[in-house]
């Protein structure tokens, strides 16, 4: 059953698109208000004025700013992200290579966090005030207040340095002694992704738990939970089917907010673990004043958040039948 009308969805997509236009404009302004220019790195001491002028010409910096802005907006909407001066390659190629790596890391962390968090929150909220709740809850708060890079170093120290179980950097083995087949690639990536995912999810689940626990506790006082007990349903059925199902609704909102924080976290984690994804390139490109790459990474991360927002709105209508978009407005 669809509870979301096509017209409403179309409207939401248009709004999302406009949001992205605003983000693009902001990006353009912000990056150009940074001191220096991105060709600074290409200019060396021995260059003549003509050579510098030529570089400026090549990168379109002699055009007036408004012209640059219009070119930028048109190019971006046609998928032309320009060339990276530092990598000397089309930005789109870089993005296509790096985006999936970050998505794998993001996706896995996001999924694991949003499975563990609500599950733990469900149990703690249901048994709120019990000894188990008190101890797990205070432990999780302690975890929540630890910075992710610190956890990462801790994990590297324990699992890499002390135990030697897992690699501490990169996505693939650098000088492999095995043949690259689909299976060995998979295995190798899993081997390398384990530590970053562990570090991210070690604290990543707490956010959604913090939303689930109190809402779970609230719904236990609801009339329908009492009635579910009165119907003779088992404790488990009442908890999962009647209580948790309702408590999940606010968690979906939290997921969007959580995603933004997760992006923060992955930027740090990618740099700590030398993970060749978007989070890593976002830092190097800003440091190198590689505007085309910086612009594109920020932009694509923004696209990700905007898409997730759209998805949650649709998910909402399935989670809560009282929410109906685009009808009888």
């Amino acid at each position, binding site marked *: 059953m669809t509870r979301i009308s096509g017209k409403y969805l179309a409207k939401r997509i248009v709004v999302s698109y406009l949001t992205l236009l605003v983000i693009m404009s902001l990006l353009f302004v912000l990056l150009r208000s940074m001191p220096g220019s991105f060709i600074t790195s290409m200019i060396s001491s021995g260059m003549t004025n003509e050579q510098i002028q030529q570089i400026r010409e090549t990168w379109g910096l002699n055009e007036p700013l408004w012209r640059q802005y219009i070119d930028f907006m048109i190019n971006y909407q046609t998928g032309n992200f320009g060339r990276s001066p530092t990598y000397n390659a089309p930005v789109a190629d870089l993005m296509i290579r790096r985006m999936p790596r970050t998505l794998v890391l993001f996706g896995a962390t996001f999924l694991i966090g949003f499975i563990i968090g609500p599950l733990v929150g469900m149990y703690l909220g249901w048994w709120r005030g019990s000894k188990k709740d008190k101890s797990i809850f205070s432990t999780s708060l302690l975890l929540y207040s630890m910075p992710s890079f610190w956890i990462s170093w801790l994990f590297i120290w324990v699992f890499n340095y002390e135990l030697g179980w897992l690699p501490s950097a990169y996505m693939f083995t650098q000088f492999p002694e095995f043949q690259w087949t689909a299976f060995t690639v998979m295995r190798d990536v899993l081997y390398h992704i384990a530590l970053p995912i562990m570090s991210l999810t070690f604290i990543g689940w707490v956010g959604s738990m913090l939303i689930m626990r109190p809402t779970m506790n609230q719904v236990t006082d609801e*009339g329908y939970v009492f009635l579910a007990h009165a119907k*003779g*349903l088992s404790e488990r059925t009442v908890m999962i089917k009647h209580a948790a199902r309702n408590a999940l609704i606010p968690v979906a909102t939290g997921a969007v907010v959580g995603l933004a924080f997760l992006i923060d976290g992955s930027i740090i984690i990618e740099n700590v673990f030398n993970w060749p994804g978007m989070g890593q390139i976002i830092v190097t490109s800003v440091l190198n004043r590689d505007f085309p790459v910086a612009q594109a990474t920020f932009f694509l991360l923004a696209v990700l958040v905007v898409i997730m927002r759209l998805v949650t709105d649709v998910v909402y209508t399935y989670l809560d039948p009282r929410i109906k978009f685009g009808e009888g407005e």
Partner: protein
Amino acid sequence: MTLLEVNDLSIRYAVDDGSAVHASDDVNFSVEPGETYGLVGESGCGKTTLAKSLVHLLDDNGYIEDGEVWFETTLPQWADENGDPKQSVIDDPDKPVRADGKTDLAQLNSKQIRDIRWRDIAIIPQSAMNALNPVYKVGDQIVEAILRHEPETTAEEAHERARDLLERVGIEPDRADDYAHQFSGGMKQRAVIAMAMACGPDLLIADEPTTALDVIIQDRILEELEALQEEFGVSILVISHDISVMAEICDRMAVMYGGKVMESGRTEEIFDATANPYTLGLKNSFPTITSKDQDLVSIPGTPPTLRDPDEGCRFRERCPFAVEECHAAHPPMYDVATADAEGRAVESTDRRAHTTACYRIDELEQIRTDAINESTWTDQTIESR
């Protein structure tokens, strides 16, 4: 043959500081098949607690301290092919089953009682409006109850029955596919009633069934309950503070105060030959349609907290008729008929008889006369607690 027999039931709520709230103390009553029994009293008197405790639906800190709840049923695993308990189960001293086939619900564990809930005793909760889960279709919630207790039923059959039940309470069967938010308040109430009848229970507990409803809907709900009773022969245990509603629908009732039954008997007896100061006070505070210009008199003071209560009659602090004797112990139940006829106080354990918990039953006429005067209630000084 009695359907439900409650003996000396005491329920406590544990409090953090180690004390206990005596929500119900040594309560006795019984419900016959097809009868409507009322528990009436002001908020906090223990009537809802008492009803919920029958099927162990108390809050986490509530527990049955003592007493028996004999109910005409048995667990599925203890039943023979006729649904009666097997002889071996009756003979087993570890199983709370009596020779007359009744089971003591108070002794069942939490898993066992879930088989009794809804199949034998269904509840229409106080907040029936919020009792429907917002994320599931109303029909599916009825189906869930049917499939829980009758696993051999197919989903299609259960759906068909859910539609029939809704139609039975005046809701279009197609509305089974709607969600609770698409129902009006009265419809939700009726849907919950339909759900309560899903497994054909023997006892229906209706907790304040009309409280949040306007009078027109109230009347319809009461009619609905009466019609269901006639059709299915279900007994109804009604809980309400509204004695006018109780007068209308109950065959028999118990007036509760501070966790104790103060007076019990047939409804007419309680209204026409009231024999307890508390019931007299309660009657004064409700308008009747027949007496013009009636002044409503409320009972001064507030109900006791019930936290480790003192000895003595629970009502004595607000009772204008309290004497020295009332401070020693809560009075036993006295037979009202004997008192009326012979002016004597005779203790009675007969649940069918009109009985009252008041030491001054031998001065019944005087008390009834004085209770009508407003000054009797307003002039007394309330003992400080």
